[in-house]
């Protein structure tokens, strides 16, 4: 199954809109979530793909959302990339390092984002069990 799905989880509508526009410009399938809860419900509904996750969100922040995703067994099949204004992550990241594949700081350029997304999608499209 080909994965070309991206999810943007951010509480700011313009950030969501920007990512949406960038993805659409290269025909990437994009889903939007305004917060952790929405993200989880998408995952529960079967979303698998590259998740761009903001850290500083009201109610449930990025780390809590990731912990919840892992806790509910929804991680497999996804790659998580933090997309955030925070310069360096704080100690709240301890224990979820292996679930966070990349960390992009805002503001980012479109090319940079597209390159990452495309690379991670190829990783997700690797069939399981295959060794080099």
């Amino acid at each position, binding site marked *: 199954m080909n994965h070309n799905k991206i999810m943007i989880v951010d509480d*700011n509508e*313009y*950030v969501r*809109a*920007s*990512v949406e*526009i*960038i993805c659409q*410009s290269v025909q990437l399938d994009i889903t939007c979530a305004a917060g952790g809860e929405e993200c989880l419900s998408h995952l529960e509904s079967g979303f698998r793909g590259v998740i761009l996750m903001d850290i*500083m969100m009201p109610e449930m922040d990025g780390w809590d959302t990731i912990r919840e995703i892992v806790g509910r067994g929804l991680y497999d099949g996804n790659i998580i990339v933090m997309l955030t*204004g*925070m*310069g360096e992550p704080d100690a709240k990241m301890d224990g979820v390092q292996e679930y966070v594949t990349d960390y992009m*700081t*805002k*503001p*980012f*350029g*479109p*090319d940079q*984002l597209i390159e990452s997304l495309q690379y991670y999608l190829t990783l997700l499209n690797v069939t399981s069990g295959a060794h080099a």
Partner: protein
Amino acid sequence: MSQVENRRILLIDDTPAIHEDFRKILVDRSPADELNEMEVALFGAKPQTAAPRFEMDSAYQGEEGLAKLRASLEDDRPYAMAFVDMRMPPGWDGVETIERLWAADPRLQVVICTAYSDYSWEQVLERLEVGDRLLVLKKPFDAVEVCQLAKTLTAKWQLSRQAELKLAVLEDAVRRRTEQLGAANEALQADIVERRRAEQETVNAYRRIADILEFLPDATFVVDGEGTVIAWNRAIEEMTGTPKGEILNQGNFAYALPFYGTRRRILIDMLDDDQETLERRYSGIRREGKTLSAEARVLMGGEVRDIWSSAAPLYNMQGARVGGIQSLRDITELRRAEQERSTLEAQLHHSSMMQALMIQLGHDLKTPLTPLFALLPLVRKQLSDPALDRMLEICQNSVNQIQGLSSKAQELVRLSCRQTALQPVPVPLSSAVECCINGCATLFRQRGITCVNAIDPGIVVEGSSEQLTLLFDNLLTNSARYAAENGTVRIWAELEPGAVTVSVQDDGLGLKPGQSGMIFDEFFKADAARHDQDTQGLGLAICKRIVLNHKGRIWAESAGIGKGTTIRFTLALAEKGIK
């Protein structure tokens, strides 16, 4: 010795017949007595007082008499008197016997019986210390004489004895009384000494207190019950410039003059005011027990001074009010320092707030910048119109500037933050520089600049690897910008004991005299005309902050405009590495 009458008599005579006679007279009961007794027994008649009977012991020689006397003394039954014959051959004569008798018992009353007048009274007196204990009975004697003698002499013995005892008692009483008086006297003496000493102490104490008051560091004065100044110490003389002489014994609020220029009530006069009155007069008056304290602003010596004072009433030992005491302290300097401190604290608070605001702003700017960064390039890609493209290019550059400013400012704030403590580690200097040179390679290449790293690879400095990298990054970027086209940037280091001075030199724009300090200020740009979008003017400010964090110095040298600039700074050397 009992109080019972002593009726013992000793007769010493060598003639037995005398003994019989005496016995008849003194000892035996008379027929009259016997008749009387019978009368009493038969008829119940009133018993008549009988003549007293005596106990009589006999001795036929002087020596024998003495022995009997001694025995009687041992038995504690002494003879009251003795009849002693004058002549008693072959032993002692009467006088000798009496002599010896008296040696043994001086109390013995003696009657000397003499028939002969071969001893005259004078002679007897010569031989014996008679006193009044010797009587003479001349033979032949009368029974009545004998009886009378016996009666009176035994009575006399008794009386003497009693007198003796009484005397002893009296003497004892007197002695004891004397002792008592002696002791009382001693006690009185001691008391007087004590009292004198106490008086002296009191005098000394008063003197000491007066001294203490005089030399108290706090300005103090004392008034009596009428408000007359009775003490004005050295400190208050100094404070007011009013010497003791001018104010002691003055009344009528004289103590207000040095402070207020007029006679008026001051704190010491308000001790008895009630709370309401007090609050009306002075705000900030406090009462603690009987003490009042307050602060006031007065004009002294042409200057406005803040004076704090406290006043209290004085009482004597009986609890009566005898005056008051007031102490003052000039707290003008204190108040001033406090003022400065709160100003500084306000400033500190303000700058902490500013710092927090900056950090918040930095965070918050990133979100609205994101769509600009993300979407402008996309728009440009879709346009063919060069005019529109140019417009978007300008927009993009603006956005870049905003982003650059924000991130640099954030960096500066982060570096200045007092909470981040430097954790120094050894950092190899040359390789750190090399790394940064590589980082700026593109920039150097664009302008054809050569960068020469002449730092000895053995030099190791002490500091934060992260901050030092940032330092060189900023310095090299700065040099790359201001170096001459196709010019050179040189970096070298000079060793000193414990430290190293690093120099970064370019051959570019150079500095105007006087600019060398300003270039480290925030937002300073050397070439105001060149609207350099790529620089925010914060690079060197960041460098300065980093060098300061490392406890070093940074400064700039330039020979003049067009003659290039050298930025120099000092860093501490690490333990290892060459020194």
